């Protein structure tokens, strides 16, 4: 039915309808939900066990506020990093921006819908994790833990507003080319900083670390100060939660009000901005076989993915503790027990990321289909290119393992290959969404793949951990 005005709810409903029609549930088998539900049940069971154990501890309010603050710092930092990347995507991917901005819809409505979309995508994975814990806490009588269902989306709303403010302002002030570079840099810096903070016990003396964390814990004099409101909101106190939500919504609204025009101008200039010319080569690189030509094309698509470096570094942060263990900067009792599962997990995640770029960048499947090549050439070339990129990142840590724990190499390689192959097969069928689709095209990928990918990588990491710790090979 035709509606008289393009109101905000109308536009939001339109976006949700498009998302639903492009969703995996309509595009593929409904049985894809089975592994997702299985993973959710496992998470919930683990959460119940953790909470049952924690029930024996009684913590004073200042300590609870400290725990909430630490969680909020990590959560908001990682969310901000992700929101920055998503905001860049919204501005730079052409999608339907031209179409919408050419219509008489007010830019503020378009911006609002886009920001809500980013906030939802940023909140979703954390909400899934936190929900398992909150449900478990509620199950054991701590009903206020259910506040996570409101506070986490509100944190996402706040960081999304900050991310859009930063990206839109950067595009307006330094232009689309530099703004994308700077924004990706900021997103990466935040991610690395938060990760480094998580590793603080390994490089900060215990006394200094204690002093650092105590700064986030109230004392008897200031326990009612406003600075602790977010933590109290996170703990489920009603008035702080209400105030926190109000502040988040206010910031969101202010960004909408003040940046809508800049967003429209920025989107037009950013969407028109190309990535610049391809690197000039003295000689053309014509290949004799379809496989080699397709592999080369895939590697080029990979190399030209805008967030390749930042997102690869971001995903490879697990290499930091690996490197520190391998170089002997700190010793964990079970060195291989930590290093090898981490490497196996990382290999799987990188494989899923790289194959998703290739599948998402495949704009002309009909070209390959109309060529005189074997049906499986495209799939094999995609696997080969993604695995090749993956092994380039993994080569150094694998060499490190060879030097430190050479007897683990066959098991490590087997588990890495298993993790890579599982994720390649998964990603080829269900890539993760990395690029906004062109106008009129269906979104490639689904967020379900993230969950399935983490599950597949975790499974292989778990198998590797069992192999390392139980050492079944020693009995042979």
């Amino acid at each position, binding site marked *: 039915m035709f509606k008289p005005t393009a109101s905000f709810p109308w536009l939001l409903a339109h976006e949700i309808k498009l998302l639903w029609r492009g969703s995996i549930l309509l595009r593929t088998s409904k049985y894809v939900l089975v592994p997702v539900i299985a993973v959710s049940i496992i998470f919930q069971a683990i959460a119940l066990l953790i909470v049952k154990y924690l029930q024996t501890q009684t913590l004073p309010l200042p300590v609870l506020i400290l725990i909430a603050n630490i969680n909020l710092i990590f959560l908001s930092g990682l969310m901000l990093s992700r929101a920055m990347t998503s905001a860049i995507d919204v501005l730079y991917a052409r999608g339907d921006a031209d179409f919408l901005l050419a219509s008489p819809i007010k830019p503020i409505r378009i911006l609002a819908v886009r920001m809500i979309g980013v906030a939802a995508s940023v909140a979703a994975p954390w909400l899934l994790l936190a929900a398992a814990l909150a449900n478990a806490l509620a199950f054991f009588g701590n009903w206020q833990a259910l506040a996570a269902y409101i506070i986490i989306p509100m944190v996402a709303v706040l960081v999304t507003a900050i991310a859009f403010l930063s990206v839109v302002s950067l595009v307006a002030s330094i232009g689309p080319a530099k703004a994308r570079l700077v924004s990706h840099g900021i997103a990466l810096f935040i991610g690395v900083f938060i990760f480094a903070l998580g590793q603080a016990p390994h490089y900060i003396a215990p006394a200094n670390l204690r002093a650092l964390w105590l700064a986030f814990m109230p004392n008897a004099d200031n326990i009612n100060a406003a600075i602790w409101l977010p933590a109290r909101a996170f703990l489920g106190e009603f008035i702080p939660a209400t105030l926190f939500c109000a502040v988040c919504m206010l910031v969101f609204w202010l960004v909408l009000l003040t940046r809508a025009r800049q967003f429209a101008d920025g989107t037009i200039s950013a969407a028109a901005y190309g990535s610049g010319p391809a690197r000039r080569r003295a000689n053309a690189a*014509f290949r*004799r076989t379809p496989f080699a*030509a397709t592999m080369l094309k895939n590697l080029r698509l990979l190399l030209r993915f805008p967030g390749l470096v930042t997102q690869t570094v971001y995903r490879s942060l697990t290499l930091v503790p690996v490197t520190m263990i391998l170089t002997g900067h700190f010793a964990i009792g079970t060195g291989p027990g930590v290093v090898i599962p981490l490497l196996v997990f990382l290999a799987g995640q990188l494989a899923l990321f790289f194959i998703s770029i290739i599948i998402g960048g495949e704009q002309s499947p009909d070209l390959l289909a109309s060529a005189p090549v074997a049906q499986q050439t495209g799939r094999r070339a995609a696997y080969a290119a993604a695995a090749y990129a993956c092994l380039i990142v993994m080569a150094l840590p694998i060499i490190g393992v060879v030097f430190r724990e050479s007897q683990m190499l066959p098991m490590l390689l087997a588990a890495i290959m298993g993790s890579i192959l599982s994720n390649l097969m998964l990603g080829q069928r269900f890539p993760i969404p990395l690029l906004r689709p062109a106008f009129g095209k269906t979104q490639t990928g689904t967020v379900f793949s993230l969950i399935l990918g983490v599950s597949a990588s975790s499974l292989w990491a778990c198998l590797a951990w069992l192999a390392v710790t139980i050492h079944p090979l020693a009995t042979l």
Partner: protein
Amino acid sequence: MSFSHQNAEPFIGLAQAPTRNNPHENSALTVRGLCKSFAKPIINNLDLTIAPGEIYALLGPNGAGKTTTLRMIAGLLKPDSGSIEVFGVDVLTAPRAAKAMMAWLPDEPLLYDKLSALEYLEFVAGLWQVEPATAAARAENLLETFGLWPHRHERCEGFSRGMKQKTVLAGALIHTPKLFILDEPLTGLDAAAAKLVKSILTQCAADGAAIIITTHILEVAERLASRIGILSGGNLLAQGSFAELQAAAGQHENASLEDVFLHLTTRADV
């Protein structure tokens, strides 16, 4: 009745001189009894024969089944029944051998935004296994011909629609196909580029290639094609030279192809 209708055999120009061994080996494209349905029948018992060196324009109103027909010929879509042969090679049983002789250009350019024009040609040449030195020489020549040489290192994402169309045409020509399947090839081209493409296609036909083309620009079909087929509701209503179609439609010799087209398709709808 002056034109074929529904399942009847089109009345003009179908007969090809059969040879002793394979009646179709002298034709570039032979389609027999082609049927395809999705929710409803799209193509209904289509017969079509195109000779080497011939430019055949397949016309029809929107939804007539032109693109579906071309996709089946290109081996991208399996027909429900019927046969398709390209230079005597069965597209359904030997698709790779058939595809090696074909170039398929859909109405939307099959390009990669993140590849440059030269890199795109490298990819296409690799798919059709063109010998690298030959491919490099042809690529240079084609890029020069289409005026893309100064832009050969630029990514296609920055190209205009016309430049994209020229790039995919260069891609089609790099492996010197014997059968061109072109769906609206002149879309987005300026007058000079359209003239260039028409002259290149005419030259390819003169060199022995067969070309099947769809277009909504009837003037292009009238001037370029040696034979024209009119498809409507999945049926080939009529085919032949422009003059034969005029006669079939009972139109006088000054009637335009537009008049003939509208006359035939309107009668079919009635």
